[in-house]
């Protein structure tokens, strides 16, 4: 969508590891560690490609795969440096009524669940009209 609407769309990713997914939380913390080390999006993309293999050894290996300094990354991961940040995202989701993933909010319009790309285009086009 960002490529399709260059300069007109911004994406903000928020962590919402579901309690039923035991390995999701460390994956979210790991992604934030990658972000702190300057490689958030490559690591993010790696995680989605590697689902659901998120054991600690996997998370560390992926760090190396995307060019992160593995020692610093591992220190961050093991220290749970970003646990509170992930918790804060979960709380924000709860506070605004987001209960499931994925949930998209496009200029205030909620789009819940996986949708065909046409649905995103429709909501984005409408938001662009309103923004004029």
């Amino acid at each position, binding site marked *: 969508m960002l490529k399709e609407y260059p*300069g007109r769309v911004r*994406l*903000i990713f928020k962590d919402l590891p579901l309690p039923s997914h035991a390995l999701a939380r460390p994956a979210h913390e790991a*992604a934030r560690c990658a972000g702190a080390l300057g490689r958030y999006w490559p690591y*993010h993309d790696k995680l989605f490609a590697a*689902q659901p293999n998120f054991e600690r050894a996997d998370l560390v290996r992926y760090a190396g795969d995307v060019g992160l300094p593995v020692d610093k990354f591992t220190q961050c991961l093991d220290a749970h440096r970003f646990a509170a940040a992930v918790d804060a995202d979960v709380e924000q989701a709860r506070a605004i009524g987001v209960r499931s993933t994925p949930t*998209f909010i496009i200029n205030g319009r909620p789009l819940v669940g996986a949708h065909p790309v046409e649905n995103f285009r429709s909501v984005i086009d409408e938001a662009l009209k309103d923004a004029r």
Partner: protein
Amino acid sequence: MLALVLVGRGATGQTPGDITVEPTMVKGPATAPVTIVEFSDYQ
């Protein structure tokens, strides 16, 4: 509740007022007229 809360407007694209933004987890310009907030689970 979702629809009631999501009326906050950011400086450009609308962002729910209670949503914080971690700069490393953002793609696209801050001046974009449309903001997509995605809540997702890696697993």
